[in-house]
């Protein structure tokens, strides 16, 4: 744990920090009264949803708040010295030398035209009086320490030649160049695949411990905090709500918001009837969760996928192939996938990026034509049938900001399927059905006159659900419906989807990379890896006792809140 010497000041001490933004509407308070400390060798997790101010706090510590923002009150002390008032050269000397930073997206945080080696040597020589050769030697040591294989070769390569996880390792090496006392990591694993996330988290923890550096780990993912941090600070709308040892805050949260936050997180180990968060639009007290009984789905197969395949031709142009004497390169994005979805149930398709799950979803939806195999809906091949399936099958997409046309009103968006499919005869009928659809997703009929940008992400997703329901479909394909939403909003949307399924007897195909969401929502699942279905079956059985190696790796990689470290 942390090595605290009671007489030395903490590495970082922040008192009553306030940050204000001067906008065209007047000053907006973005952070208020933020207080915390981090001792040497300790990892503080800063957790909160979007708009909580956690990244802003990290930026304030290193003085990287861009105008029109400014620190309006409070102090920041590094090992006893005030640093919030520093400007210019004095501030520059602290950054990188005494405080190391790691940002979220390693692809954009590295300069694409500098080699990795040049990044490292430049940073090292800026802070330490070493020659070029000495700096290079140190750079190679750092690359080894962050577990990059073949450091000598990698030294001369460019960022685009590395994978996402490797790039983040390089970013960590850059943060460590001058042996800083404090490391600030802002969402370091959010842009990475689940299996890589676990490795990076472990690496971060190791390097901090070995150096006895203080660390500030900013993230929205509670599981990452649970695995890595010693203490945690929960933030909400620019304020700190509670701080304490990780185990205490997670198991016995004192603030209502924290309790809701914890309750909203689905678990990958057990399935609940509903996530115990307040209903949309109310702040009613939370009810205890219940473990769900056996599935209510019928035996009838509504959707069947047989030996589905999709091939993409990635070969270089014919000229390039002739000159470099290379054969055609075909990518099997989907390779022989088959499963059945029972009417009234939820089937989950889980996998990491590049697994092909979205492509399968598109083919089932009819948006992409398979290169082989069949998709059967209610017994008929959907690509051969004459029947009009557009009314019976609908889809919800991942990005709530891109799935609604920003130039159309909500009314027009929801009415479109009704009009195009000829389901409504008169304008009054259309208006009534739109109002009905909005009420079903717990929104007001008045909202129909507004535009999408006037709503939050969660509300937009609910509008998308209303649009999908307008034609009263039987089957809805949900492609990562909650991945872009905050945890608490996600919980509300998932509950809503459950309620709608029970009310209307809907069948869902749920695509997600998040195993906990899959566990919570699905009756049956399929696990995809690189285009192939490696394991399938009843959700409880597969997740409790995975048979395939890859499924086991996925389960193990998920940072778990219950994990005691």
């Amino acid at each position: 744990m942390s090595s605290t010497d009671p007489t030395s000041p903490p590495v970082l001490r922040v008192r009553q920090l306030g940050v204000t933004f001067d906008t065209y509407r007047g000053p907006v308070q973005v952070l208020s009264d933020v207080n915390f400390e981090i001792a040497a060798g300790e990892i503080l997790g800063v957790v909160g949803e979007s708009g909580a101010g956690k990244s802003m706090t990290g930026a304030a510590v290193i003085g990287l708040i861009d105008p029109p923002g400014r620190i309006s009150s409070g102090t920041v002390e590094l090992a006893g010295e005030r640093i919030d008032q520093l400007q210019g050269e004095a501030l520059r000397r602290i950054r990188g030398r005494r405080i190391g930073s790691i940002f979220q997206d390693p692809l954009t945080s590295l300069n694409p035209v500098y080699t990795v080696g040049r990044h490292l040597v430049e940073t090292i020589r800026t802070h330490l009086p070493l020659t070029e050769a000495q700096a290079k030697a140190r750079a190679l040591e750092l690359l080894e320490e962050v577990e990059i294989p073949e450091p000598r070769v990698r030294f001369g390569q460019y960022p685009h030649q590395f994978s996402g996880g490797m790039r983040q390792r390089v970013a960590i090496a850059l943060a460590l160049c001058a042996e800083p006392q404090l490391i600030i990591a802002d969402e370091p694993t959010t842009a990475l695949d689940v299996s890589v996330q676990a490795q990076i988290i472990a690496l971060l923890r190791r390097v901090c411990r070995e150096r006895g550096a203080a660390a500030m780990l900013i993230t929205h993912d509670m599981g990452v905090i649970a695995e890595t941090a010693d203490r945690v600070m929960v933030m909400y709308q620019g304020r700190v709500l509670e701080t304490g040892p990780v185990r205490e805050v997670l198991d016995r949260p004192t603030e209502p918001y924290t309790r809701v936050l914890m309750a909203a997180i689905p678990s990958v180990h057990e399935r609940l009837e509903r996530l115990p968060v307040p209903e949309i639009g109310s702040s009613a007290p939370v009810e205890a969760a219940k473990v769900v009984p056996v599935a209510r789905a019928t035996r009838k197969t509504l959707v069947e996928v047989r030996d589905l395949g999709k091939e993409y031709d990635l070969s270089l142009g014919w000229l390039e192939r002739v000159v470099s004497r290379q054969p055609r390169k075909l990518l099997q994005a989907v390779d022989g996938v088959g499963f059945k979805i029972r009417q009234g149930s939820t089937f989950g398709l889980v996998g990491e990026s590049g697994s092909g799950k979205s492509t399968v979803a598109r083919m089932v939806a009819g948006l992409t034509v398979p290169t082989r195999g069949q998709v059967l809906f209610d017994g008929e091949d959907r690509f051969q049938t004459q029947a009009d399936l557009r009314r019976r099958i609908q889809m919800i997409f991942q990005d709530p900001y891109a799935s609604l046309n920003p130039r159309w009103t909500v009314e027009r968006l929801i009415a479109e399927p009704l009009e195009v499919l000829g389901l409504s005869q008169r304008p009054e009928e259309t208006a009534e059905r739109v109002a009905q659809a909005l009420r079903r997703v717990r929104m007001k009929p008045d909202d129909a006159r507004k535009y999408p940008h006037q709503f939050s992400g969660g509300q937009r997703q609910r509008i998308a659900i209303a649009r999908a329901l307008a034609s009263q479909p039987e089957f809805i394909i949900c492609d990562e419906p909650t991945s872009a939403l905050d945890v608490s909003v996600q919980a509300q949307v998932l509950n809503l989807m459950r309620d709608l399924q029970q009310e209307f007897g809907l069948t869902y195909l749920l695509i997600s990379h998040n195993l906990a969401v899959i566990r919570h929502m699905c009756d049956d699942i399929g696990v995809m890896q690189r285009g192939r279905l490696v394991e399938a079956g009843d959700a409880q059985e597969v997740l409790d006792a995975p048979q395939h190696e890859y499924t086991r790796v996925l389960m193990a990689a998920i940072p778990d809140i219950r994990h005691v470290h």
Partner: protein
Amino acid sequence: MLAYLLRRLGQSALVLLAVSLIAFMVFRHIGDPTISLLGEDATLEERAALNTELGFDKPVPLQYLNYVGKVVQGDLGISYRLKRPVSEVIAERLPATLELALMASLGALVIGVVLGVYTALRSEGWLSRAVMTGSLVGVSLPTFLIGIGLIYLFAVELRWLPSFGRGTTVKVGGWETGLLTASGWSAIILPAITLGFYNMTLIMRLVRAEMLEVLRSDYIRFGRARGLREKDLYFGHALRNTLIPVITIAGLQIGTLIAFSIVTETVFQWPGVGLLFISSIQGVDVPLIAAYLMFIALLYVVINLLVDFLYLAVDPRLRRR
């Protein structure tokens, strides 16, 4: 890489071919060459004889091939107005235009990049604002107005510089240059400024916009978080990334200059290829028009290719492993 080169060469050849086709259509079908060459009162026999001599009685595809064959050998036909081989006429006037374009593009590039970087780094200062306003005026002013204004100021009022012509020229090998005499230099200043001004403002605004964009990027922010010095950030990271797209545009601008010399040469009566083209449009001198087309196309294609290869050398993302 080799494949990319071949592909680009192939595309260039296609463009040249397309242009040669257009040039040929213009050449063959606009106006009647026999009348233009022989005069209005030539007899029918004389015209028929000329027709056969020029090969106009053969089938069209064959004529096209002939035309292309001749072009490749440097025979671009006979000018209707001047009654001399087009290739000779063009070769005579080319050095004037090339020198002018060279001076103009060098000036535009150097001043444009320097001003662009300055106004990006010191964007709030009064000098930057003044330069930016000036650049807007520069973009709005038609080239000929700039020329006329300069003539009025420096030639009519101040009488410092000449208002037309090249000054005294010296023949070096086959190249008639004005850069070796004092009067040549004083004659080239005003036209060069006129020609290059628009390009300079363009490059300046481009460099400024690119640099501002780059300065907002994540890797600059990350560099700041690592404590890198401002000069390393600006002139190492930022400048390198800024100049890469600027190279392409600047390179293409050189070709525009040569084409735009038409206007400048008219204003200053500069004896170059542009002035030649104007008179050929007015006089419907078809072979010259066609030849100028081919010339411009060739120039552009060559410059485009060079710029593409330069880009390859400079941006590591484009090189395949």
